[in-house]
């Protein structure tokens, strides 16, 4: 890693968008996330790193209440979006998930046409008044997800007919089509080649202008390239959280240091 570049990088970050206090997640008896306190900032890319099975996906899924769908999963503690407790009774998870979009670890396009995949979100949320509006949204989202050139001639073909990497970009296009305020991305580039990865990273950087992006990644280089803040998880604990430059150049916790230098993981 280019330490000098990291340290020099100007960090412009916004207000606190999502804040978690003493967040706990249990799968039945398994205590998967322990006492996580974290403030995710607006207009910032936050990277979650950590060894496999440490609970990155689990914590990410708490932020848009996707864990509600797992029968034996229990979330405790306080998680707020713009100061409002998202686990409060008054919060509708359906609306929350429109505001907090998600790209999953495994590409999961609908077995519908490419167009329908992207148009589905705007349609159910009533975001496009005319067909032309919808076409416009679909095109811009596919462009931003770096899929337009490959998909523009086959918008009516099923999304499941695309290659793995293309499917993942389709899922990204689908997620940004509802203009979420926060975009949660669980290893969005694990199935992508370096060129597509670079395009997605560019997209993430672009999204940062308006949104808050949380990205789970196993690639230290990627975390360093795209994020301004990094959280290191280990065995369900948030070990260290801070500016990306500081985490990679000057970690405070010995576990963080061993992980980023490749000794645990």
């Amino acid at each position, binding site marked *: 890693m280019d330490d000098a570049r990291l340290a020099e990088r100007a960090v412009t970050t916004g207000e606190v968008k999502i804040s978690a206090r003493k967040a706990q997640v249990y799968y039945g008896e398994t205590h998967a996330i322990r006492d996580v306190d974290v403030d995710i900032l607006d207009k910032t890319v936050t990277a979650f790193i950590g060894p496999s099975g440490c609970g990155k996906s689990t914590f990410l899924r708490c932020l848009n209440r996707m864990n509600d769908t797992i029968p034996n999963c229990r979330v405790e503690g306080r998680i707020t979006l713009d100061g409002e407790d998202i686990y409060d009774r008054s919060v509708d998870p359906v609306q929350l998930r429109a505001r907090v979009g998600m790209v999953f670890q495994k590409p999961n396009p609908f*077995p519908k046409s490419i167009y329908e995949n992207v148009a589905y979100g705007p349609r159910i949320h009533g975001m496009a008044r005319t067909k032309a509006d919808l076409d416009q949204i679909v095109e811009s989202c596919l462009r931003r997800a770096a899929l337009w050139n490959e998909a523009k001639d086959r918008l009516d073909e099923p999304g499941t007919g695309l290659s793995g990497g293309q499917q993942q970009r389709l899922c990204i296009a689908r997620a940004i089509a509802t203009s979420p305020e926060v975009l949660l991305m669980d290893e969005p580039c694990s199935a992508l080649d370096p060129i597509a990865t670079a395009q997605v990273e560019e997209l993430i950087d672009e999204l940062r202008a308006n949104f808050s992006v949380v990205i789970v990644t196993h690639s230290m280089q990627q975390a360093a390239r795209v994020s301004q803040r990094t959280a290191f998880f280990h065995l369900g604990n948030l070990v260290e959280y801070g500016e990306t430059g500081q985490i990679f150049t000057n970690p405070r916790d010995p576990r963080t240091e061993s992980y980023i230098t490749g000794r645990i993981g």
Partner: protein
Amino acid sequence: MTDISTGTAQDWNAPEVRSNLRRRHRGERWLRGIGLAAILTAFAVLVILLGSLTASGYKAFSQTFITLDVPVSADRVKPDRIAAANWRGVMQDAVAAMFPDATDAERKVLAAIPSSVAQFAVRDRVLADPALIGQTVTVSVPVSDPFDQLHKGLIDRATPEENRRLKDAEIAAFDRLVEAGKVALRPNWALVTSADSRFPELAGLRGALIGSFYALLTCFVISFPIGIGAAIYLEEFAPKNRLSDLIEININNLAAVPSVVFGLLGLAVFLGWFGLPRSAPFVGGLVLALMTLPTIIIATRAALKAVPPSIREAALGIGASRQQVVFQHVLPLAMPGILTGTIIGLAQALGETAPLLLIGMNAFITAAPATPFDAATALPTQIFIWADSPERGFVSRTSAAILVLLGFLILMNGLAIFLRNRFERRW
């Protein structure tokens, strides 16, 4: 790369390694042999079943007809009392006209050869057109059953007369008609266009087909939406707890309950409490719906389960409600499986006999039902009635009816396979 040591390398030519390999191949050959034998046995049984049914049933697909020139004399038929005329006498006149040299006894025998409908066929023609009085009406009518059997070679002329269904005189009279070219074998459309009758030569499946259709329609209209609704609730919405486990066990049990029990239930509830009409296809359909419901619920749940959870997550993740997830994503993907299960359930219902017997759908009814609330039989109960009838002609008709029923079953199962292949999706 690795420092794991496995000691010496495997010697692929060592005798014990080779014999191990041989043993494994032998095991595989055995398994394939047993599988093939099982399939062949099943196939042979099927061929025997279909073969014997066809052998005894194909004769019912044709019927011996006799063509008669019937002089409608003004003496016997008065224009103002056409219906009340002595039509039997008219028929005897016709036979007499055909064989002027026949004795009285012979004429009596000859007059018994056409089915008893013959006189009504003539009467109806004259009723429709009274101008025919005084002229000759030509009708082609089925011969009565024993002569039909004789013509199809089912009555052995070599049997001693006292053991034979037809006496020598009757056979001789029939042979005269054959010689005169009045007798012909024709396709027996009455088998599907007529309702039941006491006379085999007139009996058909129309009532049973319409009865079965109404019963299945009722069954489908009730069990399909309820079954899918119940399955969706159980699979997609119900919390997984003791209560839902209990419900699941009970639904599976319900699928295994003997059908006669559903019949008793229908008798007690639908006829006893609700006072619905006896023998009605609508009630039959209700009972069949009770039976089909668990099948549809189980098939639907399996089809819903087979939709990958990642599709649900994808839809939930962009803010679809649970209802939108189910109706816009999961259900369309599960539909082929649901339809297959439903059709197989309905095919089962089509062949179900016991519950229909209990609610009286084995009554002798000579008119096809006009509505689902009219008394009727169904295909399987019609088979039951015919199989129980003493007349020889019903033997081949029973087989023919079974073939018709099997034909519908094959059609339905074929449709199920077609739907499965046509709409099967991969993801």
